[in-house]
């Protein structure tokens, strides 16, 4: 086997060849390569992203040797971007690594079009003013953006993308799509050919539970005016009925049927149909087609996913059952594809501009589609949600994390006023504490939370941190940022929505729903 494929084996098992190909096509820009930025990129370089470009104007100082693994004693006085870039290149020669010796703030101000060349920008250790400017640029250029910041024993991670759509959300737990209460003709035909009262004990204990449940549901319906069990009492009764049909106590298929009977009681149809937008991105074209499908051929259902869980069964029954589900799934997909092509034609696009494979994946994942939207940073800061903030602040378990979120903004205000962060230097700590307190009070006021205060303890801690970038905190923040980058680029799994406020004190961190 070729080396690259073997090297990536453990991650290919998570995001597959397609996810890997997306990573290898991506170009990532990193702003500031302190430990937070360096650790973020380390995880992405190991995973094999296409290219990285590091932007940092600073030189390696003595203090950097104590918190950044990507520089060493020989780097002192040299460009930090250059040193970090050369070490990262050592980790994976398949990645194209570049660096630009310039301060990100300057680049944001003087050369905004620079950012349009990237798939995604990772902005670390930026203060509020630069975050707002960069966010505006990236939204304009349609470049994905993620902010990561480490500050003492706290930090934050925040994604900023107008809209992110996911077909393959790959949830851990998801109810199988078996259509037990609404079998289509082929499934019904299959179950009818099987006799639940078969005398042969081996055959009896190898009837798949799908068949048992479909047939028993029919039996129930005939004696209950065509309705399925709905009350708790009826459900219990239905399970008793299943139990009574067991020919022996060791029949696993009947035990599975009893355990899976809730799949029969689950409400028919889909719970959260994705909304349709006017935008004509591939995803939304397919959503429009899906909506038509549900209203027409689907009879209220989305296209069938087509996979079935393992269950006690003879090989023959199981393989045949699998084929019936797959055939229905394929037929549904073909109908959906037809509808997609028609819509494309109607809106004046090439009817074949969406790949078959994409439509197929969309069809199979129709119940798992996800849309994530993020407010602009400017909007989050200018139009705060006082009710949400108040709710979080009074939640004892998470008040530290939320307090840190507010203080992270307070220290930026502080720095804009006093030209240094509170506690950044060893002298005058007491004065810094009282100034930060005043700043926090006025910020809370601006956020519409004037009645609330932050604890002295927390404000003291924030000053104690003195804008320190601790390696272990940076590794957590960088680790989270890189994990979110992977989800955004592969378009698999679901990225976080909200602002992640990290609390390294007791690890009661919080995802704040403010964006």
């Amino acid at each position, binding site marked *: 086997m070729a080396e690259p494929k073997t090297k990536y084996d453990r991650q290919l098992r998570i995001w597959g060849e397609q996810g890997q190909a997306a990573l290898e096509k991506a170009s990532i820009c990193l702003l500031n390569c302190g430990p937070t930025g360096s650790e973020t990129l380390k995880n992405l370089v190991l995973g094999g992203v296409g290219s990285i470009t590091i932007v940092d104007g600073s030189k390696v100082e003595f203090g950097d040797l104590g918190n950044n693994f990507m520089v060493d004693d020989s780097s002192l006085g040299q460009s930090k971007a250059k040193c970090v870039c050369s070490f990262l290149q050592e980790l994976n020669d398949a990645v194209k690594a570049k660096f630009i010796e310039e301060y990100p703030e300057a680049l944001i101000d003087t050369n905004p079009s620079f950012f349009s060349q990237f798939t995604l920008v990772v902005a670390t250790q930026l203060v509020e003013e630069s975050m707002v400017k960069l966010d505006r640029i990236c939204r304009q250029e349609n470049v994905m953006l993620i902010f990561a910041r480490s500050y003492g*024993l706290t930090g934050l991670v925040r994604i900023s993308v107008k809209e992110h759509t996911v077909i393959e959300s790959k949830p851990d737990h998801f109810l199988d799509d078996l259509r037990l209460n609404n079998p289509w003709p082929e499934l019904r035909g299959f179950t009818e050919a099987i006799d639940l009262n078969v005398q042969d004990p081996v055959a009896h204990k190898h009837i798949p539970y799908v068949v048992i449940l479909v047939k028993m549901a029919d039996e129930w319906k005939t004696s209950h005016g065509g309705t399925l069990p709905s009350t708790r009492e009826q459900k219990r009764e239905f399970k008793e009925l299943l139990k009574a049909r067991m020919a022996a106590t060791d029949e696993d298929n009947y035990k599975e049927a009893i355990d899976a009977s809730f799949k029969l009681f689950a409400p028919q149809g889909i719970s959260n149909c994705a909304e349709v937008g006017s935008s004509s991105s591939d995803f939304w074209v397919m959503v429009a087609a899906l909506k038509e499908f549900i209203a027409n051929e689907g009879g209220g259902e989305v296209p069938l996913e087509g996979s079935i869980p393992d269950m006690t069964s003879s090989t023959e029954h199981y393989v045949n059952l699998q084929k019936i589900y797959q055939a229905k799934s394929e037929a549904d997909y073909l109908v959906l594809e037809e509808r997609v092509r028609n819509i494309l034609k109607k809106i004046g696009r090439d009817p074949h501009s969406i790949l078959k494979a994409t439509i197929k994946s969309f069809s199979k994942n129709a119940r798992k589609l996800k849309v994530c939207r993020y407010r602009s940073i400017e909007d989050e800061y200018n139009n705060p949600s006082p009710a949400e903030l108040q709710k979080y602040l009074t939640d004892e378990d998470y008040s530290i994390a939320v307090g840190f979120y507010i203080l992270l903004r307070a220290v930026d205000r502080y720095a804009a006023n006093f030209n240094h962060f509170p506690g950044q230097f060893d002298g005058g700590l007491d004065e810094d504490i009282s100034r930060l307190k005043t700043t926090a009070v006025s910020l809370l006021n601006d956020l519409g939370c004037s009645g609330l205060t932050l604890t002295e303890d927390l404000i003291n*801690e924030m000053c104690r941190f*003195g804008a320190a970038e601790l390696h272990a905190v940076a590794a957590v923040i960088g680790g989270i940022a890189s994990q979110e980058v992977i989800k955004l680029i592969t378009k698999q799994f679901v990225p976080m929505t909200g602002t992640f406020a990290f609390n390294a004190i*007791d*690890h009661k961190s919080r995802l704040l729903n403010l964006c």
Partner: protein
Amino acid sequence: MADAAPPSKSRDLDKLLLRPGNLVGPTFDPGVQLRDDLQEYVRVLVVGAGGLGCELLKDLALSGFKNLEVIDMDRIEVTNLNRQFLFRLEDVGKPKAEVAAKRVMERVSGVNIVPHFCRIEDKDIEFYNDFNIIALGLDSIEARSYINAVACSFLEYDSDDNPREETMKPMVDGGTEGFKGHARVIVPGVTPCFECTIWLFPPQVKFPLCTLAETPRNAAHCIEYAHLIKWDEVHSGQSFDPDNPDHMKWVYDEAVKRAELFGIPGVTYSLTQGVVKNIIPAIASTNAIISAACTLETLKIASGCSKTLSNYLTYNGVEGLHTKVTEFVKDKDCLVCGPGVLIELDTTVTLKKFIDMLEEDPKMLMTKASITYHGKNLYMQAPPVLEEMTRSNLELPLYDLMDKIPKDVLHATGTINKDDKKSSGLRKLRVVFRGIDGVTDMDMAGGA
């Protein structure tokens, strides 16, 4: 914004270690002394030099620790390179512990890391007592269980059955799978130990043999048939080696044949490896997050510079981002971190008879036991030299070997046979001799 302070390598860490704080541990005593003591006196052992171990070594080296050791029995493989960032392609085949130690020392000057290329069971128990904190970067339940038992064996209880603080050996433990992971703090005697909450790690589900032999339904069934049934039928006596590519190819080919026979889709070489080797998918980012959380806790335990995690953190990045802290409680009857298994003996019982009893005792079920008493080997099953040296003790009464002390603690290491599964284990035993004045009090049997 020029920094007025003289340049220090621990510029950032100093803020945490030199300044007083309010949300800190009870023992926190900030100052230069604390920073220097951390560097000079605190010794941390990293168990495992894989995905978590590599990160732990880097993180600890950059968090003020200078005396580190690492133990790992494995050699570097190509599939490690997507996350074990201390290794390069040209390192494949070399011992992980040695390469990891060397790479971190090259980049972080002043740090000393001693590698141990061996199994964790190969070290004397006393080896582990030499460390202030043990950081676990492991991927197996058995290995965690073993180190946990070792660390708990150092724990002593006073006469009121309260754990003695100076004998507590704290551990931090991390684990990951794909986008998910956990980090926890174990302080024996205070928090639950690994064994108290063993139910958090349910045993792997195995397919029933009759399904494999008679009613296969999916690709994994076909693969396991080739691996567990067909292999032995064809290769009588030759055991299957998952690291031998020829063996793996054979299993794959047989699985394909079986799948064709039954009309089952989906057997691939990659899936064959995954099923046979029970491969857990792993990525760099999750390992980084979990290891760094473990390092933060190590730093807090050693310095008191902040409150600690109490006591179990889970991380899940599959759908959005979920973190949760759970405070699990100790099992007061835990055989591993509790005061020890109480065994009552007559003074005439020989060491040999005692070792035989451990096989039968329902709480022990330990075979091939080696016995130590306050660090002294009473009987060792291996190596042969030690076995020969200690063999003569077997026929002596245990009471005599324990210096005729009526009530004391012994350690037994051996194979524990639980639920048809064998694993290396260590148990602490409280031995009480019957018929000796003052200790015939039968009430204490309740504590076992």
